[in-house]
């Protein structure tokens, strides 16, 4: 108990004594701010390749512009991200680039930043409409996740239109699909999945989900899931749809080892002329270099480029405009003009805040254009 009381006393003393210090500090702070521009970056999780690329782009941009970038990685923990935001706010950081963990948290984040007179460009993970309504200094600089799913559906639509005989497995009138998800509940998992399912249905297909499960973004988990499904449902599915490229490639490996090839003796032969050496098409998202190479080897049907450079640069330029000019209203960032009319998807579907939305295009990577994406 003694320890506890000592601690309690200490904390109370600090609370009281520090309050006085802060009251005396503001004048000094104002002077500091004039000297250098500081941009805060609250980043979801750099364990993920895309987010790591995004963070690297930000660091490069900040170095080139000669500004201080305070980058915080919350490693997927929403509570940690709030703590980090609060810490930066206490340090006097005003202008933020935010890759949030959860869309639903963006309103509270915007309010906290707004209360200190700051701004934020929400990127990669969509902010809520309410977050953008907190004030004109809050922006969307992102590619809606659902677009990735929609592009997957388009790639598959083209494939099955050209090769209708490939729907013969399982129910011949339906696309019998196996879904490999990222971490369940992750925004990219939820939005991409819903969009690809809806996209196929909108294109007029009957969709039959043969099997679906998470592989937590991991190729190895995807491969073992796929191995198990091939034992259980071998021959009953037409396509494998994965939420990212890593898992798509795990599924490709499984299909190869289980003999789902046009010619199991020669893994380079496309006998049925569908453009693939595998007998079952697989699609992913991210357009990683490994995935593009797999497309070159005719092992992967398609993927979707989520543009880390485009998203990060747009968000960074918005934050810089806010820091240097105090407003970004009506101005373009990374050559992208703010939206002028609402689109179908939240948050850019609300007319009141479309002017705060900067949509960075996703790009479908298909058999006909993949070479453009090889580095």
């Amino acid at each position: 108990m003694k320890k506890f009381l000592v601690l309690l006393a200490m904390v109370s003393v600090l609370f009281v004594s520090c309050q006085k210090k802060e009251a005396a500090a503001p004048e000094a702070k104002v002077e500091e701010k004039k000297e250098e521009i500081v941009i805060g970056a609250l980043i979801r999780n750099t364990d993920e390749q895309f987010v790591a690329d995004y963070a690297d782009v930000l660091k490069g941009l900040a170095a080139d512009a000669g500004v201080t970038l305070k980058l915080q990685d919350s490693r997927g923990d929403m509570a940690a991200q709030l703590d980090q935001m609060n810490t930066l706010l206490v340090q006097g950081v005003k202008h933020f680039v935010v890759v949030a963990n959860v869309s639903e948290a963006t309103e509270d984040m915007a309010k906290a930043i707004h209360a200190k007179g700051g701004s934020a460009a929400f990127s990669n993970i969509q902010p809520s409409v309410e977050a953008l309504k907190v004030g004109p200094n809050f922006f969307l600089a992102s590619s809606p996740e659902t677009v990735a799913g929609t592009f997957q559906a388009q790639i598959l639509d083209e494939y099955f239109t050209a090769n209708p005989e490939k729907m013969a497995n399982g129910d011949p009138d339906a696309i019998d699909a196996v879904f490999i998800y990222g971490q369940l509940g992750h925004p990219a998992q939820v939005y991409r999945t819903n969009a690809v399912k809806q996209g196929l249905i909108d294109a007029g297909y009957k969709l039959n989900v043969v099997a679906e499960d998470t592989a937590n973004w991991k190729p190895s988990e995807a491969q073992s899931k796929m191995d198990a499904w091939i034992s259980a449902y071998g021959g009953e599915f037409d396509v494998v749809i994965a939420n990212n490229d890593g898992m798509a490639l795990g599924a490709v490996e499984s299909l190869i080892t289980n003999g789902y090839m046009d010619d199991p003796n020669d893994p380079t032969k496309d006998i049925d002329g569908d453009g693939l050496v595998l007998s079952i098409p697989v699609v992913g998202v991210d357009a990683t270099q490994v995935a593009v190479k797999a497309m070159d080897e005719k092992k992967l049907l398609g993927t979707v480029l989520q543009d880390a450079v485009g998203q990060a640069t747009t968000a960074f330029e918005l934050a810089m405009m806010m820091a240097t000019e105090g407003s970004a209203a009506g101005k373009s960032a990374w050559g992208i003009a703010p939206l002028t009319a609402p689109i179908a998807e939240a948050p850019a579907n609300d007319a009141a805040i479309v002017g705060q939305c900067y949509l960075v295009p996703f790009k479908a990577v298909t058999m006909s254009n993949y070479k453009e994406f090889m580095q």
Partner: protein
Amino acid sequence: MENTNSKIAGIKIPAKLKNILSTHTSLITFIAMLIFLGVITNGAALRIGSLQNLVVAEAVRAFAALGVGMIIITRGIDLSLGQVIGLSACVASSFSQTADYNSALYAGQEFALWVPVVAGITVGALFGLFNGILVAYGNIPPFIATLGSMSIARGFKLIYTQASTLGSLKNEYKVISQGFLGPIPYLLLYVLVAAFVIWVLMNHTKQGKSIYAIGGNAMAAKVSGINVKAQLVRVYLYAGILYGIAGILLSARLGLANPLTGNDMELDAIAAVTVGGISHAGGVGTVGGMMIGLMTLGLINFGMTFLGVNSYFQLLVKGGIIILAVYMDMRKHSRKE
């Protein structure tokens, strides 16, 4: 509290200074770190705003630490706590979403404020009871029993939320965690109350003595007439209730809950109490120690964020400190033996 400690260990250290150093290791470490951080940031890290952030950030974990701390004193462990907190957060959130939110789990329905609170605590209590029965009456090692219930809680969390985020929580619910009494966050008040209650339980009740006795030597405790099984179930139940409260506070603080809420919190809580001197050999540990351990790790987190240390290095530092704390603890105990 230190008296209780040394009685259990059954030894008296003669030199006064040595006594202070060894019994207050974690407190001294904490103060040293606080001063160090204050000095290298010219006091900036110790402003009121920073301290408020620190307290708010650690409050939910404090409930987790109190729960698992008691369990570790009985020579048990609880791996399910993060998932139970997450499930409780999700259940509580589902009853506190604004009625006009279209994507609400119970869209169009308005619940009184007590509904999410009772629901969240109930979830925690049920899991605590379940864990306690598995450990006490099923004789399943705590590590395995709670590993199982961790997965069950995670499954329930995904099923209940349908893998989506439960957002748009009512302001009156969010105020539970986001409110301030002057400069003092409500969360700090809850932690103080909970820590005081557990401190009374552990130090001034028969049950508290039984808990220490069970951790020290379960067989001896049984022989001396303690109903070990019933006491164990109670400890897990109390811990479950604390996790339930933690879930409510976490969701009110975030203004949402999703299937990822609570993930990995077991590691943070176990690490915190370990740093605070709660021995995994059982029978040793104090509520003050738990809180100091928690604040120490919290300060490390906060300090490294404040100084902008790369998050990958933060993991290394945290891991190193945990290993060091356990090593010191083991050394202390092997010397005693």
